[in-house]
């Protein structure tokens, strides 16, 4: 059975040249484009996220009360409870899951979470995405090829 998710928001090829391109390893395949939400802190699933709203609720988190629904979520990785994948699966049910996940540190929590969210996901980048992608940048993710195209400052 096929589990690939294809979201046809991508503009025609060669419409514009991205400011830069990152290359990494596919975690979950698929293509999507959207606005980046960058967290420099790891994210907890169970106890750290409200699945009804796709909002981070962890106290002291810099993105507390911010929603990742439909965003290209760029973050170091997962932390906390083993309920991570269960909680992120629930965001898929409520329609508040991230559109894609780009992260640095592989763990069982995030691997399983990315699989069941079924959004394109990439890790093992040639350049740290946390160093060069900012919240609000327009990002095109081609997880099948492991390519991330970044348009700094948002969609043009």
């Amino acid at each position, binding site marked *: 059975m096929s*589990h690939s998710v294809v979201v046809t928001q991508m503009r025609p090829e060669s419409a514009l040249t991205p400011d830069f391109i990152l290359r990494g390893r596919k975690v979950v395949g698929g293509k999507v484009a959207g606005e980046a939400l960058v967290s420099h802190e790891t994210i907890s699933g169970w106890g750290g996220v409200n699945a009804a709203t796709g909002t981070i609720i962890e106290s002291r988190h810099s993105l507390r009360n911010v929603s990742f629904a439909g965003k290209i979520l760029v973050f170091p990785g997962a932390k906390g*409870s083993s309920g991570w994948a269960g909680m992120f699966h629930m965001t898929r049910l409520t329609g508040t899951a991230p559109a894609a996940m780009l992260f640095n540190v*592989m763990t069982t929590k995030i691997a399983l979470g990315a699989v069941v969210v079924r959004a394109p996901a990439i890790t093992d980048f040639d350049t740290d995405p946390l160093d060069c992608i900012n919240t609000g940048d327009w990002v095109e993710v081609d997880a099948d090829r492991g390519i991330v195209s970044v348009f700094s400052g948002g969609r043009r």
Partner: protein
Amino acid sequence: MVALTPRERGMLDGVEGPAVQRAMDLLVRYAEALDAECFVETNNIAGVPGSSPLWVKQHYAADGGDYRAIFSRFDLDSDDVVDVPRFSGISCHLQGGMDPIHWDDMGMSEVAHQNFVADEQSAVAQGAQMLKTCTPYIAGNTPVMGEHCAWMESSAVVFCNSVLGARTNTEGRHSTSAAMLAKRVPDWGYHRKENRYGKHLIKVETPIDTIFEWGMLGYFIGDQVQDEIPVIIGGIAQPSLSRHKHFGAAAASSGGVEMYHMVGITPEAADLSMALGGRDPVRTIIYDKAARSKTYETLNALGQSLDIDYVMLGCPHASLDQLSEIADLLSGRKVSTQSALWIFTSRAVKALADACGYTKIIRDAGGLLMTDTCSAISQSIPKGTNVAAFDSAKQVHYLPAMMGIEGHFGTTAECIDAACTGKWRARLEARG
């Protein structure tokens, strides 16, 4: 591409039926996300198979909204609903949503309780052992050295790897449910010896004796090393099971520690070189009086008011020796009319506590000894609670943030005192 044995290829091709096929498909996607080379066989799985709140069942109403629908669509992340055979692997159910007897006291509705009972009956029919605890290792499932397990529950995972020398990653809902049918998990992380050596050296320069001290040390270390392996040396005396339990749970909460070594104490750390795999530590970190004070302040950061409405003990679920201590502390005292005392444990330990008379002492004092869950898992606190107290660094990390209440952290004796007086009278300085 993950390598499959002929048996695994057959499972993926549907030879062992549609549910095993869906389970193997999920496990292959998971293994490829991890970039694992192959699977490891397991016959010790701890998860929460098929249990779900009503809103998730309602989400799958078109599929019947029953256990079969939840297990297929949610647990196995399947695109269709299939019949689920009896679990082939030895499978236990971890903690759940409410106490089976005192659910009404917890504020649960009759409808929610009926859903809880139905889920339990279904899981039992699938062959799940209903340990109903975050501490399976003291409630009927104690893995042995080298045993490959597939466990959820971060505090149980760290105990399993560190104290018992068994091998598990922090698995999730889907991977454990799939493993109950396919008896496989990716051969990745803590299943492989080369990933079980320590990275950071922790020198303890202040005495660590009670679960209170062990909890603070764990919380400090988790924050320092995040999810990497600490090796602890210095002022630590042989910890009891309960002290390991509180230490590991705290380290898994503030950081994500899944394994630790204590030199001369834990099984894969006979000496420092063995713990570090012959390498130098990446970093050496000191835990001294100053670090201890700072950790205490962090854990008490959300505690302002000294009027205590609620004392919760049993995170992770209380062991028999802890219930014995609590019964001693409560003997001849009464819980204040200003506050409530809820204590959580496993069904197995509760049965022993009943036999030992601890349950009666707790009940006569006005406290409740409950099983299956805790305030964080059930998101249930006594009505009107604004300020709570805990002897668990893990619980004070989670519950106040989740429920929007204040929280204090102290010793078990300080918590019992608070329950009986309605006042928080603990200060770190008083203990020196």
